[in-house]
Each structure stands twice: as structure tokens, then as C-alpha cells.
């Protein structure tokens, strides 16, 4: 058969990355979004999303990648993904209003024989509730990782596809698109696929929460978590790729959404979610790691201190600040002068009343009593300890993610702190 034409509805992070990667795989792609201004920006190759390689892929595949604000352009598509980013509130609850509306619009615009695939993250039960007679509706698990979205979309580990009846073969066009990625395709009922997505995230949270718990204990008893990790990775039951890096709590929004969903469903059905609540409590606790250390070493000791904060994004290689530990920290530092620098996020995102927007890492250090590295951007690792020490007024350095070379920073007389030691 001829290569199917693939549509993606919703040109925010997930949809845009998926569309660009579909084109990179050689498929004709229609990227639809009802927001005409967003489409206009995309046509000018102005992307509101920051992901490694994304700009390059959009430019490189311009001929195969059509952006449109007209849903009529979806009529030619054989497979249409519904892929808007689903917003969450502070409690991690999804706002499904936008995807509901978009799905209805795609149902109306698509050919009756087109395959519709919900790619956005939705709660268990969503897909079956949207199924309608005579139409092909599937749910496909997305495993987007902020900062690694392109890599994950081009080389997925597997596809998990939720179906009304997993015993039935996939339509040829959909199968052809999935097969082009050369990975296993797992078919299961809708509810299993929806819960599979959540299950993956739950295991990641479990690993990180365990790492956080033990890293904190390391700090208290003189152990070093970084020495323990290699031993864990050599245990086959834990594995080389396990999430063992401690951090400043769960951020980004997606994991929090899944935790909230599991608690909600468990409460509704009377199953036990105590451990999930404990993960959330641990996440809240670890988020304040930097504040505790700053209070102990600077805020309770130095009059009107100046703090240099590097990194505002919730993690490296992304513009997203959703539940960013850095912004959370800055919320509690409004009384103090801060000097902010992030390679992508503007200092104004912090909404801090006494903030100076620095143009570089070293400029942020000028005259500061403490340096805090709140996002593990790789470029921060290149800061020379000696240069920073010369420009800092104080000696305290907080590097929760161990981006800096602790030994080098200590060797120039700085009081270096990281998580887990």
C-alpha cells in the first residue's frame, strides 16, 4: 500500500514533536491546530517548544510537514492522532475539556474509515467512553520525556496500544505507521493501556522516591549515595537504566497527574494508595532541600544576603517551568536579593520582586553570598570553580544534582553541598 498520510491534532509539545518525527520517518504529515496564530508561528518555523533537534527536524522535513488551522485538511489523513498537551491544576487533576473538544472536531472532520488515535495522556476509562459505532478509535501510550522527546519519538522502546478489542488486528494504515519505527507493538484493551502508562510512571516515581529517601539518610550518616548507585545498577532486579538519581521532588506535571489519578481511582474503588500518598509527601519534603540548607548556612546568618540561582526550568533541555523546584524555591526567597540565570527561561518567569536577570552564569555569581544550581543544564558543568569563587562574595555552593565537580569546587575553598552526601 502507499504510505499512509498521518494527521496530528493539537500542535503543542506532544503533537508537534510527534508530527515532526513522523515526517522524519518519511510519512506525509498534517499538523492541525485550531489556534491560527500558533499555526502561523509554526509556518514561520517559530517553535514555542524547546527540544533538542526539534527545530532541525521541522526545517528539514518542511516538504512533508503541512501545518494547518483548517480541520478540513485532516480529511485526507488515514491515521489521525489527537495529541494536545493536557493541562493539569495544582492538585495534578487533568483538564480534559480541550481534548474532548478537539476529539469531537476530529471525529467530524475525518473520513469515516480513518483511524483515530488518542495520544494525549487520559485517565482510565476515557477511551472507551469516547468509542462510537463504526469508527476506529485507539489509545496509544505516549512516553514523552521533556528534553528527550525527539529521541524517544524516533526510537521508541515499544508501542502500547489500547483497543476496543485487542484480539482484532490493527488497521493496515495504522500498523504501517507503527511498524516503521521497528519496535514491539503491544495490543491490549483500552483500560489496560491507559493504566500501563500510569504504571510506568508509578515505577519511576517509586525508584526516585526510594533514591531520595536513602540519599537523605546518606547526608545524615556520612554515606555517599553516588557510591551506592553503581552497586544497585549491577543488581539485575534493579538494572542499569533504573531511575536512581535523587532530586528535588517530582516536577513537570505528568507524574503528579498520574499520582493524583491513582489516588482518585483507589479512593473511588477502595484500594490501597497509601504508598502513593507517601511518595507525594516525600516529593514535597525533598523539594525544600535547598531552602533548608540555605536557611542553615546563609539566611539565618547573613544580613540581607544575595543569592545566585542558576536554572529556572524544571529540568535541563526544556523551557517548561511546571512545578519547577527552582521557582518553588524562589517563592520563598522574596525577601532576599537574587541573581538569576537560565539558558532558556527568562528571569521574569520567577516573578521575584528583588531579582536581577544575569546574562551569564558568572555574572549571576557577582557578589553573591551563595550559589545555587537548581536545574542540571549541562553547560553549568563547564563553569570554572576558580572563576566562580573569584566572583562570589560568600563560599556556599548548593548543587543538588551534582552538575559541578564537587572536588574541584571544594579545592578552591568553597563550601560545596549536593544531595546524597
Amino acid at each position, binding site marked *: 500500500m502507499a504510505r499512509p498520510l498521518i494527521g496530528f491534532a493539537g500542535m503543542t509539545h506532544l503533537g508537534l514533536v510527534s508530527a515532526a518525527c513522523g515526517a522524519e520517518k518519511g510519512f506525509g504529515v498534517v499538523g492541525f491546530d485550531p489556534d491560527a496564530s500558533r499555526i502561523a508561528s509554526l509556518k514561520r518555523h517559530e517553535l514555542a517548544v524547546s527540544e533538542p533537534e526539534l527545530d532541525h527536524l521541522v526545517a528539514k522535513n518542511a516538504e512533508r510537514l503541512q501545518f494547518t488551522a483548517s480541520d478540513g485538511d485532516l480529511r485526507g489523513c488515514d491515521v489521525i492522532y489527537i495529541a494536545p498537551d493536557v493541562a493539569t491544576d495544582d492538585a495534578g487533576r487533568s483538564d480534559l475539556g480541550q481534548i474532548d473538544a478537539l476529539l469531537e472536531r476530529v471525529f467530524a472532520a475525518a473520513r469515516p474509515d480513518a483511524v483515530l488515535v488518542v495520544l494525549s495522556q487520559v485517565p482510565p476509562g476515557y477511551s472507551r467512553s469516547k468509542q462510537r459505532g463504526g469508527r476506529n478509535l485507539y489509545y496509544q501510550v505516549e512516553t514523552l520525556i521533556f528534553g528527550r522527546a525527539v529521541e524517544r519519538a524516533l526510537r521508541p522502546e515499544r508501542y502500547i496500544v489500547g483497543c476496543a478489542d485487542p484480539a482484532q488486528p490493527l488497521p493496515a494504515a495504522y500498523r504501517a505507521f507503527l511498524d516503521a519505527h521497528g519496535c514491539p507493538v503491544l495490543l491490549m484493551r483500552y483500560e489496560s493501556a491507559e493504566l500501563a502508562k500510569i504504571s510506568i510512571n508509578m515505577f519511576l516515581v517509586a525508584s526516585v522516591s526510594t533514591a531520595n529517601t536513602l540519599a537523605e539518610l546518606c547526608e545524615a550518616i556520612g554515606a555517599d549515595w553516588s557510591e551506592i548507585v553503581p552497586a544497585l545498577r549491577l543488581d539485575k532486579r534493579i538494572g542499569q537504566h533504573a531511575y536512581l538519581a535523587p532530586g528535588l521532588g517530582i516536577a513537570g506535571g505528568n507524574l503528579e497527574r498520574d499520582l493524583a489519578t491513582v489516588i482518585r481511582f483507589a479512593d473511588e474503588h477502595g484500594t490501597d494508595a497509601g504508598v502513593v500518598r507517601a511518595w507525594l*509527601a516525600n516529593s514535597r*519534603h525533598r523539594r*525544600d532541600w535547598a*531552602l*533548608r540548607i540555605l*536557611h542553615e548556612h546563609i*539566611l*539565618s*546568618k547573613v544580613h540581607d544576603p544575595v543569592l545566585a540561582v542558576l536554572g529556572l526550568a524544571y529540568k535541563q533541555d526544556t523551557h517548561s517551568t511546571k512545578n519547577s523546584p527552582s521557582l518553588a524555591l524562589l517563592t*520563598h*526567597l*522574596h*525577601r*532576599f536579593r537574587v541573581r538569576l540565570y537560565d539558558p532558556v527561561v527568562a528571569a521574569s518567569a520567577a516573578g521575584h520582586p528583588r531579582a536581577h536577570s544575569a546574562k551569564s552564569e558568572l555574572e549571576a555569581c557577582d557578589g553573591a553570598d551563595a550559589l545555587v544550581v537548581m536545574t542540571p543544564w549541562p553547560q553549568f558543568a563547564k563553569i570554572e570553580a576558580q572563576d566562580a569563587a573569584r566572583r562570589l562574595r560568600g563560599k556556599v555552593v548548593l548543587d543538588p544534582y551534582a552538575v559541578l565537580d564537587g572536588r574541584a569546587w571544594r579545592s578552591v575553598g568553597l563550601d560545596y553541598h549536593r544531595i546524597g552526601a
Partner: protein
Amino acid sequence: MISHVSTQPRNPARVVVLGARGFIGKALLARLLAQDVPALGLSSSDIDLAAPLAAEKLAASLKSTDAVVMLSALTPDRGRDIATLMKNLAMMQSLCAALAKTGCAHLVYFSSDAVYSFAAGRVTEEAPAAPPDLYGAMHYTRELMANTLGSVPVLILRPTLVYGPGDTHNAYGPNRFRRAAHKDVKIQLFGGGEETRDHIHVDDVTELTVRCLRHGSTGTLNLATGRSVSFREVAQLVARQFAKRVEIVSAPRANPVTHRHYDVVNLIKAFPGYRFISLEEGVVRCHTETAGAA
């Protein structure tokens, strides 16, 4: 976690301290007056809150614009039985009845860390209240009673072990150790004194209370320093204040070893940059002031 109704601190119209002759009450009243905050101290000799008609009598002393600090309570050294519990609840009942009549601008209820169980070593304000005895149950019930006053902004303060000059109690800790060292040149620990606890100086308790009053803070806040030490360390610290060698001896332990550490991050957020009196500094200060007063 607490929230400040007033982001900028401002003095309340008047603070009424109930239990003004007690250890904390006396120190709080003194601090308020020293900081030019209009204040009225009432004690059981003025109004016996457990007595009939106490509510009417108290209401006559209150104004709707007052901030009220409730410190009146029969502490465990006055009894741990059901009768003491009921008297304490009657006192709170009188206060609530009075406030229902007069209203007030702000109610600060001094609870206790006795509302927490010893099942977990780390305590935050989010830890569920699970009082292990009637004293803890009394405080938790009084917290709930305070929160029935729908229109009154309520702050619950849960102090850990408070020490300092003027302590009228003789609880196991710095004050008792100092008295024992002074009188007997000997401090007695239970077992090896391994239990860790957080000790807060009364000046920190009163300073934080005044700040809460000035901000009209509401919610629940633990008053603790975030640093726990063993009773043996406290005993050694106290012993070092004396010229004579103070002996530290061990008595059979009546209860299993428990630990309690406070995560004070909510306090740090509420009062950024707050500097606690360290235990070392506090014990020295206590010793010097007590010696000076003697």
C-alpha cells in the same frame, strides 16, 4: 503551614493573654509590652476559666478587636487524669462561649507537640494528630474547639519542649537538669539519655508568637528549632556551666527509647531568615540569668 493575613506586620489593637502568670504567658506578656504592643494579661486569679459563669466574666473583659492568646491549661504536672482533662476542656468551653459572644480579631491557641504520636521520628504540621494520652487528646480537642469559631481567624501553635528562665515546671530536660546540677551536683538520666528531642528557648517561642500576632497568621505551626539532641548531650551541656564537676548518672528506664525531630521548613517559609537561639547559647543564657537572679 500557616498563612499571613497581613503581609506587612502591624500591631494588633490589643493582645489579651490568658494564662499570663505561667511560664510562657509571663514571658509573652513581657515581650509584647517591651515591643509597645498593647496587652492585657489575665490569669486564673483574675478569671477561673473552669468555674461556672467564667464565659460571661471573660466576655466582659474582651473586645471584638482583641487578639486573644490562649495559654491557660492545667499541665501534666497538675494531673494526667480524666478530671484534669475535663477541667481543661471546661476552660476552653468558657473561652469559646465568650468569643462566640464578643468575637475577636485573632485567636492564637497554644497547643502542644503532645498531639503527635511517637510512631514516627520526624514531625511536620502535616503529620496526623494521634495523641497517645489524655493530655495530648485535651490539646487536640481544644484545637478542634477553637476551629468551631467560624468567624474567628485561628492560629494553632504546637511548641516542642520549651526551656528558659522562669520555668515553673520541672519537666525532664534543661531546666530540671540545671536545678539538679545546682542542688545535688548530679544529673540523673533515664537509661543513657539516648532519646533525641528538640528544645526551644522561651524567647524564641514568644518572639515567634509576636510575629504571628503581627501578621494575623492562621493555620497550624510547630514551634521547634529543627535541631534535636539527646538528653545526654543536654545534660553534658548543662553540666559544663558549673565550676564543680557535675556527675551524670543513669536511672532505670521506664519507657522505650523514642526520638522526635521537627522539620521546620514551614516555619522557615513563614519567617524567612529567622535565627533561633541555639541550645548551647540558650543554656548559657539560662544559667547566667538564673544565677544572676539567685
